[in-house]
């Protein structure tokens, strides 16, 4: 069927849909959905488990846990690397599935990997700010690793918000670190100003639109910002895309068991959003999103200025080419802000999360980081 559009006699609609074909297609879609529902009911915990790389808890403080992943090579690197993930999601992202695990790749490269799990903050933790995380929990973890290995300095690998914590840590505790790796980390929070990328950086934009009083009201009203609220703000970054995800995309992947399991494991991670300590949110929004103090070396934690010029150790800054959460303009091109002469940038394909779980990025990211560290050992 070809139909002429009203008002433009020369144009012809490309829609070729016949009633019979439509109903046949509907039958097919319904069969797929029914089969998918049956498959979901059969799934076992073993099939859906995430973060399965073997690890041991070596330290705990409040809700924070420090884990050491069991090395997979006989003689792992003598200097361990501590991975610092964000607070907005759980650490499981770095070990989502056995065949899409950033951690397993690092272990396979011969690194000795530790990871800090920030746990699930509650209302009791509403007063924690960035200083508490950087100078408190993170410093404790670094101290534990230094003591366990009898080392003066270790390597730090910060991801996203964890990258900001790691940057602050490197500026304030330079002597305890040997190398700093940052991945998908917002450093220049205003880097996207005037360089708006379609569909990217929505979080930056609306965070800058709020007034200081709005942020105070939000934090005072909730104490700890609910994880569901944080999750919703991520959904709103691509509302229609996220609607399609649970319908058209779901239909597509229901017939493919491998893709379905990937999807479900990712959903399990997405649904597990921790609450966010209120004071940290206040500081994050006002000092970083709004005042952009980190890259200007104006941020103060516990009365000490975070001067990026103090970061004289080697820095590897990894950014994702398709990152819409942290626009690349907020991550890259900040080498001159650090005190180091050994600054490297690495672009990897994929988005903010795809960097760690995407097929292409998986082949590049861990080997590149391991190589960069080895070259500085």
């Amino acid at each position, binding site marked *: 069927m070809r139909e002429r559009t009203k008002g433009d006699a020369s144009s012809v609609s490309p829609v070729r849909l016949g009633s019979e074909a439509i109903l046949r297609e509907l039958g097919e879609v319904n069969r797929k959905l029914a089969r998918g529902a049956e498959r979901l009911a059969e799934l076992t915990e073993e099939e859906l488990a995430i973060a399965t790389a073997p690890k041991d808890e070596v330290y705990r403080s409040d809700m924070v846990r420090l884990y050491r992943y069991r090395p997979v090579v006989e003689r792992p690197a003598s200097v361990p690397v501590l991975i610092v993930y964000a607070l907005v999601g759980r650490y499981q992202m770095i070990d989502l599935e056995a065949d899409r695990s950033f951690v397993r790749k690092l272990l396979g490269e011969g690194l000795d990997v530790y990871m800090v799990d920030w746990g699930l903050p509650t209302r009791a933790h509403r007063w924690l700010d960035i200083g508490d995380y950087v100078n*408190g929990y993170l410093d404790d973890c670094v101290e534990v690793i230094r003591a366990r290995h009898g080392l003066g300095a270790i390597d730090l690998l910060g991801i996203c918000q964890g990258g900001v914590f790691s940057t602050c840590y490197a500026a304030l505790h330079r002597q305890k670190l040997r190398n700093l790796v940052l991945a998908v980390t917002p450093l220049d929070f205003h880097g996207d100003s005037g360089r708006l990328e379609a569909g990217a950086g929505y979080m930056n934009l609306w965070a800058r639109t709020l007034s200081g009083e709005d942020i105070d009201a939000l934090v005072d009203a909730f104490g700890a910002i609910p994880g569901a609220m944080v999750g919703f703000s991520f959904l709103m970054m691509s509302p*229609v895309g996220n609607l399609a995800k649970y319908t058209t995309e779901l239909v597509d992947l229901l017939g493919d068991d491998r893709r379905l399991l990937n999807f479900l494991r990712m959903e399990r991670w997405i649904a597990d959003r921790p609450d966010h300590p209120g004071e940290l949110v206040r500081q994050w929004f006002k000092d970083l999103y709004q005042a952009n103090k980190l890259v200007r070396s104006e941020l103060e934690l516990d009365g000490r200025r975070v001067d990026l010029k103090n970061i004289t150790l080697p820095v590897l800054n990894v950014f994702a080419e398709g990152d819409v959460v942290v626009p690349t303009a907020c991550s890259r091109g900040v080498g001159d802000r650090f005190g180091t002469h050994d600054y490297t940038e690495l672009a990897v394909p994929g988005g903010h999360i795809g960097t760690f779980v995407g097929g292409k990025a998986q082949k590049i990211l861990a080997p590149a980081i391991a190589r960069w560290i080895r070259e500085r050992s």
Partner: protein
Amino acid sequence: MSPGEQAASLYGAWLNAIAGFYRAMTPGAPGVSEASAAGSGPSPEGLQPGVRPILDAIGVAQQAFNQLYVGYARLLGDAAAGKGVAAWLETGQAEMQKWLENLGELSQTAMRPVVDRGAGSGAAGGATEWLRAGVALWQSPQLWQSFLSAPGAMLDPRDSHPLVAGLERTFTALGDALGAAPSRALSEAYRELFRADADRRRAQLEYFLLIGRTWLRVNERVAARLREMGERDETVGTLMALVRLWTGVADEAVHEAMQSEEGLKVTAAYIRAAAQFRLQQNRVVEIVSQFYNVPTRRELDEAYREIHELKQRLRGLERRAGERPGANVDGGPES
């Protein structure tokens, strides 16, 4: 709220949004059941954690697609009479325009009680008129009645008879004097809560208006995209392909709208109003808690703050004493 409850609430809201989205895309659709979208049905036994919401999503998708396919099949039946996808798009534009006008008018009406605040009990545009006007305006009351039936609007003293206002003042004063209840404070807190609720609903309306206006652009762009494809002799051979084209176009348009100055403004206003509403809720709870001698949130927060500061001081003292955090779970050194 536990992480599980948080996830359930997030999925519930989102699946309901999906139902609405597909309803808007379907010609003459009866509508997807929101109750099933919210995942309120019985949970099949033996499901692994996190699977239930996806099963709900399948249910929503099934309903959405059924109505969508049937709607288009009917539409094609009409094609012989000179209608079709393009004609439906035009009809959809007109209906959406009408919807927006109604919603805009509703938003203006809803604004009136606040504009008239302080104008006395005889002020025009009171809660009753607001309710009546709103119900008359909106053709699908299920969704929008929630905006209009704010209990606070009806209890708002701006709309009450002077006698009622006088009685209220007298008895709250008496209640306070006899120590029966924190009547005045509670009454005032409730009023502020209702005002905050009305503000929040208005902010929500403004937000939906923006989405509605964006949807108009989506229809226009889908029509334009189809024309371009036709000119290039490209085809859309399945309804799923048409849906994908539609969602792709909608995604672009929504991104533009949300990143626009107006989009950011209404989003900020909504966040602001939601936070103020929550603060007023907290205030009511605090007054009641104090009356019943239950620790208030503010008191608990202060206790948490003190514990937090003591921990910070302890950490500082330990650092100064040269103590390192111990390997308090597994002390085995690796060196």
